[in-house]
């Protein structure tokens, strides 16, 4: 594997649309659940061990070579909120565009043809990792990291939180990120039926409400 390829894929500046999404942080800020670095850390930890673990395992499975269309269905089954399904497919479509420009492969072309409106983003990311010569652990690390880096970046904009404090939150979560990525990759190797299905009901509920806000800074 190429360690540098992992850095390119995991870079927050990878042009795959993520910058317009808060990972549920915008409604959490509005309702006062995130108000400082400590509460941001709690939010990120909760998201990491629930939705993050599930998404990381889907990505790891795609990187491992599990059928992406079966994984796309598995992702739907694990995403009860229609708003979050729509977001996942929108971001999957955007990730696909960047992936085909960066690490083109017949696998990516085939998934793009089968899901022209977008497959779930973690599935596309996992297949992208595979096209880049990366493994299941790498894909899981990418997804686990963006599960927490997305909200942290958004909260810097939403609360004008000190960016050093927000980045320190991410740094302190690093050991947990490693554990979640390992757990996800291990599940992925056991096959599609062993994939975790952890979820955060409050994230699902607030995502539905947020999708109906008339005025918001972030798309999700």
């Amino acid at each position, binding site marked *: 594997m190429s360690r540098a390829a992992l850095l390119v894929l995991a870079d927050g500046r990878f*042009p795959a649309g993520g*910058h*317009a999404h808060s990972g549920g942080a915008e409604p959490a800020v509005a309702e006062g659940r995130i108000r400082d670095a400590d509460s941001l850390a709690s939010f990120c930890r909760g998201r990491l061990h629930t939705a993050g673990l599930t998404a990381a395992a889907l990505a790891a499975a795609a990187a491992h070579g599990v059928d992406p269309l079966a994984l796309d269905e598995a992702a739907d089954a694990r995403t009860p909120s229609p708003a979050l399904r729509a977001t996942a497919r929108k971001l999957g479509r955007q990730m696909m565009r960047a992936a085909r420009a960066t690490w083109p492969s017949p696998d990516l072309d085939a998934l793009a*043809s089968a899901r022209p409106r977008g497959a779930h983003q973690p599935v596309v990311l996992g297949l992208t990792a595979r096209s880049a010569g990366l493994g299941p652990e790498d894909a899981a690390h990418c997804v686990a990291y963006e599960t927490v880096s997305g909200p942290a970046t958004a909260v810097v904009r939403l609360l004008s939180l000190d960016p050093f404090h927000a980045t320190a939150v991410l740094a302190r979560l690093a050991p947990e990120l490693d554990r979640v990525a390992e757990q996800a990759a291990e599940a992925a190797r056991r096959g599609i039926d062993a994939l975790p299905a952890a979820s955060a009901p409050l994230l699902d509920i607030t995502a539905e409400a947020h999708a109906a806000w008339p*005025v918001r800074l972030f798309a999700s």
Partner: protein
Amino acid sequence: MHLGHTHDGPAAVSADATRPDGTRRALRIGLGGPVGSGKTATVAALCRELRDRLSIAVVTNDIYTREDADFLLDNAVLPPERIQAVETGACPHTAIRDDISANLEAVEDLEDAVGPLDLILVESGGDNLTATFSKGLVDAQIFVIDVAGGDDIPRKGGPGVTTADLLVINKTDLAPYVGSDLERMALDAEKQRGELPVAFTSLTSAEGVGPVADWVRAQLAAWTA
């Protein structure tokens, strides 16, 4: 940029001149500029001027609302299916320059839904003087400033003023009231831009957008030549 790879899937990667079915895609023109300079009014006037002869669609990049899209809808310059709003996560310049995914998706969806199109106008959210469009998103860009924003803006320059394919200096009717010197603005703009064109507009009359519309027609003629 395509690494020698053939794309046989459903969507072109970014700036490809043809659509997946082999037809030529619409010309894409970006409109950027500071908040309140008249980007949306220019888009609306262009649509009114050109819609009888051309098949047009608009992508708006509002910063946190659908105001711009709603303005175009309320003024009925185009039917609703020809207007798409993109959400930009508090960073309008990112969505038109650094990560153009959502905007590319919007222009492709418009071509799929209401195409074939001749022209897609991509309006950025109101931003600062450094905001420019990626060449992966648009074929040409217009930067809109106005006389009331200060007649020193052309002198200050910046990527928008200096490099846009057309600089529009709007609200010329206000110049006497805000003490802006149009001649000085024209001279400063020329110093910054060399041969690149500048259009002075006042959109208080229907024909005010004329110089911009003429420029767009010339771009289209070159695109379809």
